[in-house]
């Protein structure tokens, strides 16, 4: 017997291992060269800043069963590092004949997840040039840094406190750096360098993860390109305001855009201008061609730009998107507010251009993007549209507030008055006479909506219905005449703040032929089409030169939660390294805010002495230039020296007179100094001033002034930073951390009440107070069923659920078992208790044994009547079913937690003709119990029954507490419903919505 069992076991184990061998042995042998990727090409990406390349190759046919393609890049063809992969669905392969991989922008270079040391790629021969990712080891990766632009992203804490000072002592370089380990960077991102050579290769990996040989490495050189042509420019001339307004579309590649320019062009110059543009394109092509082939000659420009600059905006870094500008015309001239200097060419432009307002049709306008490589791309010239100011959208009042319940990472921008609009409709019946209409509304804190009134008119203007939506559930239903083709809606509000009498929103529903349903038309507030306009929210902090577009939102919005990232990482270029100390070196200087002109940034160093060194070197240069003034002769040189003197004087003043820097240097400890600078920088970065623009997207826009605070903030020791930052704008908003979430107040109150109830009731139960629980109907049935089994002389089956002891239902089931076992012992009827959980087993045994003792029949207790079958769910059921059939049990109890298997047991029990009583809190199983059992304890009844029987204080107390809380719920639900039915919504509104 035993040996045969052993054999069976052996066979089974062999069977298992045979499965496992299949995948291992399945790697079929095929000619390896068939798996090399074909036709790998590297292309330059157009319009970019010279850092993007695109790879393309021909995917292998799907019969090759490739699971992924891995891409490698290197500086030389003999060492290439893994940079990314493309997953493929094995079954279908790649549908097209080409697949692409982009190596663009700043993307992953290295972080702590990189391997520690240089590792060859898997399954490669010894001479293979392929390696896994760039390792963390500075000896390997360090020398690579110079082939890329590497941007280190460093958290504030790591940058300030984890750096190691590193002074270079090389002859030509005595710079001081801040050294950081790889672990101090949250990431290093790379960007390819323009005109640098890079090699790429690709390999395929098979379904069974075999790495096939890679293809021959291919060279790629990213080239600097001119910016993308701006698609749209909308110039508008507002006649009565004597103002030009411009709106344009944003570019896709914005990384190296340096200036936005707007030019004015006379109509007769258009042809010259077009020639100029054509020539620019040829020059670009020539530039790139010359880089590849140095023998080519450079083209000399023939044309000059006939258009005249009227506006220039610095784009900032990182790029600050902006879509609109307005330029005033005074006395038929456009005069710029300042001298525009081109930092690359040094050319200075003073804008003073004639603009004859009576001949505006003679003028065309051009928009251009100018990038850091001095390429400029122009839009098509367009004439201005002439309008009057009443065609401009009306700008609502707006205000900024700190959001009340956050950790200090949101400002709220609010504007305007509430809006409501219909979004959809659907017929509720076949005759199409009942219509369900969905609506949306938007409002802000200033106008809390009490009620929305919908007046519905038919096409003839007869009022059909007036609906008072005092509770806004976003849907209304209307009875409409048959064959309705048009419905007019007039919507008004009752708000916490009164609205003007004529504040009415109008909208139509019209019958749409295609969808055959009533569709909402435009929404009008007065004459304004609400959806025609959008709001652009611009913001600027103390470190930005320009306002940047924060969000563009629809015209129906009334507020915006403006997210302000709480943490501001430092972004530093990584060029140098130290192999011995495994350090990557970054600059120790960082900016704190902009100076009072908003043009230069004020910064400091991680190390105090560097700040002093800088001041000293400035003073030295200042002195040098000052003394040189006496010896210089030519006017040009003198002018240059004078401007240098002015510059250095300025810098010295800025540094030594700046209250922030002064304050910082006054700290004795370096740590305190850094902590202070960190705080100021954090404040400067996260304080914003706002303005909003409302526009139709085509140059019809109105721009607000910068938002002004009604009351200036009082200075306290806490906001001393504000004092130091004054001068750039008093109306910056700094989001503050809050201390209580008002929205959670109801939960707090309810939890407190419930907590006290539970505590008190359990205490009471423990003290032995008599807590009343109504008799549960099923308990009566339990006794009857046991009696029946006794009459028939057959055993009772009791399954205490399949769950573990941690389940409340199991505990309840066991409490009932105690009662059943006792009764059974009294009647001297056999009880069978199969158990699935091995921890429940001894507990159940103990309970049954005790029950027999209590009944005075210790002799009749059989230890084997409580037994473990198996812990496998369905096998357990098979076991239980076997018992039912063999023993012909007269009564079956199922009390506790059951899952899908419940049905299998009760079905068998029902077919053997047993009386079945069940109880569970598993909601999905209750229906099956109800239909297959004679009596079922539903959900909480199970707990109640066990508490009733066991009278265990913990259960009893909490049951009572839940009961009283339920009473509270009942009272609130009933009174809340009645109140809201009679339009009193204060109670319902005091409960949370989500």
């Amino acid at each position: 017997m035993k040996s045969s069992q052993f054999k069976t076991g052996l066979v089974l184990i062999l069977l298992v291992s045979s499965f496992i061998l299949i995948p291992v042995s399945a790697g079929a042998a095929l000619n390896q060269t068939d798996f090399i990727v074909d036709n790998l090409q590297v292309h330059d990406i157009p319009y970019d800043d010279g850092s993007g390349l695109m790879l393309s190759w021909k995917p292998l046919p799907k019969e090759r069963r490739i699971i992924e393609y891995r891409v490698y890049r290197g500086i030389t063809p003999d060492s290439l590092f893994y940079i990314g992969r493309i997953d493929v669905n094995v079954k279908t392969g790649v549908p097209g004949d080409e697949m692409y991989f982009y190596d663009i922008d700043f993307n992953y270079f290295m972080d702590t997840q990189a391997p520690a040391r240089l590792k060859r790629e898997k399954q490669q021969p010894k001479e293979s040039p392929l390696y896994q990712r760039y390792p963390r080891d500075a000896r390997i990766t360090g020398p690579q840094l110079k082939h890329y632009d590497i941007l280190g992203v460093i958290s504030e804490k790591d940058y300030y406190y984890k750096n190691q000072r590193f002074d270079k002592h090389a002859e030509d370089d005595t710079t001081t750096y801040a050294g950081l380990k790889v672990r101090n960077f949250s990431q290093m991102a790379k960007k390819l360098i323009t005109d640098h050579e890079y090699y790429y290769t690709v390999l395929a990996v098979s379904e069974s993860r075999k790495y096939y040989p890679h293809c021959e490495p291919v060279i790629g050189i990213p080239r600097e390109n001119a910016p993308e042509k701006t698609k749209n420019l909308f110039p508008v001339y507002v006649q009565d305001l004597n103002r030009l307004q411009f709106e344009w579309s944003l570019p896709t590649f914005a990384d190296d855009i340096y200036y936005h320019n707007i030019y004015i062009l006379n109509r007769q110059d258009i042809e010259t201008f077009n020639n100029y543009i054509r020539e620019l394109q040829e020059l670009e092509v020539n530039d790139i061609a010359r880089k590849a082939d140095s023998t080519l000659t450079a083209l000399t420009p023939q044309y000059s730009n006939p258009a005249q600059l009227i506006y220039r905006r610095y784009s900032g870094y990182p790029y600050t998107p902006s879509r609109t500008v307005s330029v005033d015309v005074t006395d038929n001239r456009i005069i710029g507010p300042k001298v525009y200097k081109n930092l690359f060419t040094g050319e200075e432009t003073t804008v003073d251009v004639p603009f004859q307002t009576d001949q505006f049709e003679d003028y065309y306008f051009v928009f251009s993007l100018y990038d850091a490589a001095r390429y400029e791309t122009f839009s098509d010239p367009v004439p201005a549209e002439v309008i009057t100011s009443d065609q401009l959208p009306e700008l609502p009042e707006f205000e900024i507030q700190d959001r009340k319940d956050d950790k200090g990472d949101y400002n709220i921008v609010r504007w305007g008055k509430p809006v409501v609009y219909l979004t959809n409709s659907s017929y509720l019946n076949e005759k199409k006479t009942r219509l369900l209409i969905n609506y949306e509304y938007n409002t802000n804190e200033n106008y809390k909506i009490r009620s929305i009134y919908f007046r519905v008119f038919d096409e003839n203007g007869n009022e059909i219905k007036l609906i008072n939506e005092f509770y806004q559930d976003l849907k209304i239903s209307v009875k409409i005449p048959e064959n309705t083709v048009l419905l007019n809606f007039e919507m008004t509000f009752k708000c916490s703040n009164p609205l003007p009498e004529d504040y009415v929103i109008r909208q139509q529903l019209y019958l749409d032929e295609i969808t055959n349903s009533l569709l909402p038309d435009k929404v009008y507030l007065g004459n304004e089409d609400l959806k025609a306009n959008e709001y652009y929210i611009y913001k600027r902090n103390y470190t930005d030169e320009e306002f940047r577009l924060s969000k563009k939102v629809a015209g129906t919005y009334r507020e915006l939660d403006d997210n302000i990232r709480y943490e501001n990482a430092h972004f530093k270029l990584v060029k140098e390294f130290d192999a011995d100390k495994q350090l990557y070196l970054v600059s120790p200087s960082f900016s704190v805010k902009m100076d009072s002109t908003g043009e230069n940034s004020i910064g400091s160093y991680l190390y105090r002495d560097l700040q002093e060194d800088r001041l000293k070197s400035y003073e030295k240069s200042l002195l040098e230039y000052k003394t040189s003034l006496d010896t210089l002769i030519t006017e040009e040189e003198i002018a240059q020296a004078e401007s240098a003197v002015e510059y250095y004087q300025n810098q010295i003043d800025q540094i030594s007179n700046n209250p922030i820097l002064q304050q910082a240097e006054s700290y004795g400890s370096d740590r305190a100094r850094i902590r202070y600078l960190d705080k100021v920088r954090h404040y400067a970065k996260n304080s914003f001033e706002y303005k909003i623009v409302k526009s139709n997207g085509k140059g019809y826009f109105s721009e607000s002034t910068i938002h002004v605070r009604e009351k200036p903030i009082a200075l306290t020791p806490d906001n001393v930073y504000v004092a130091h930052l004054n001068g750039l704008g008093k109306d910056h908003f700094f989001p503050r951390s809050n201390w209580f979430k008002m929205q959670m107040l109801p939960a707090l109150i309810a939890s407190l009440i419930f907590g006290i109830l539970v505590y008190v009731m359990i205490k009471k139960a423990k003290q032995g107070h008599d807590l009343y629980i109504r008799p549960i109907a099923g308990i009566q049935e339990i006794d009857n069923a046991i009696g029946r089994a006794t009459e028939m002389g057959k055993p009772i089956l009791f399954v205490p659920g399949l769950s573990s002891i941690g389940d409340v239902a199991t505990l309840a089931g066991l409490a009932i078992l105690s009662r059943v076992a006792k009764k059974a012992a009294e009647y001297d009827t056999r009880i069978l208790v199969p158990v699935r959980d091995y921890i429940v087993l001894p507990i159940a045994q103990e309970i049954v044994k005790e029950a027999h003792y209590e009944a005075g029949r210790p002799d009749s207790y059989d230890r084997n009547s409580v037994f473990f079958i198996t812990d496998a769910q369905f096998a357990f059921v098979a076991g239980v079913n076997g018992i039912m059939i063999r023993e012909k049990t007269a009564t079956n109890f199922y009390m506790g937690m059951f899952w899908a298997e419940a049905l299998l047991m009760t079905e068998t029990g029902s077919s053997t003709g047993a009386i079945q009583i069940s109880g569970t809190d598993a909601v999905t199983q209750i229906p099956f119990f109800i239909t297959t059992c004679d009596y079922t304890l539903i959900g909480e009844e199970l707990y109640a029954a066990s508490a009733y029987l066991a009278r265990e204080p913990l259960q009893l107390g909490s049951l009572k507490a839940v009961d009283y809380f339920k009473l509270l719920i009942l009272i609130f639900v009933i009174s809340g419903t009645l109140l809201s039915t009679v339009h009193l919504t204060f109670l319902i509104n005091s409960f949370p919505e989500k």
Partner: protein
Amino acid sequence: MKRQIPLIIVIGLGFVFVAHTFIPAKISVDFYEWWQTWSKAISPFAVVLGVMSLFMVHSTKITRKVSNWQYSAVTLGSLAITSLIGFVWGTQEGTPFMWLFKNIQMPMGATMFSLLAFHIASAAYKAFRARSLEATVLLLAACIVMLGQVPLGSQISKWIPETSQWILNVPNLAAKRAIALGVGLGMTATSLKILLGIERTYLGGGD
């Protein structure tokens, strides 16, 4: 002491969490982040629990040679082999490890519960009885919902899907809301009892 200290941790830390729920301030978020990194570090060890309990159950069966002990050997063997393969060849798409998952674990997992379709059918035939008025109503509602779910229902009469939706949207909604309120309250009570240190079964037995 062996019980007291853990209990104090639960209660103390638990009340900090209560406070965290109501306080949005930076310090509260920082506390949460600290807890998060720590529980992230604890989490991988929890799998040991499952493996060990499985191992204990089955190894006792094998050593005691209880009936059908061979199947326990199969369980332990497949456990060991699967994880070993995972460590040796990795767990990416295309490894033997994934093959085991896709062709053994996945199909069997899917099949286990599909057995129930057969059992439901036989129960429908043999056990779903309109024993009482309540059970009759239940079965009737069930039949309407079942018909309402399938395309045929709407082809027989448009009232079937509509009635089925009405059952779901009205009486079912009322029933489930009331039951959910009870369950939610029960859940809150259980959490509360743990928080107040009244309920301690999670500490396990022993002193």
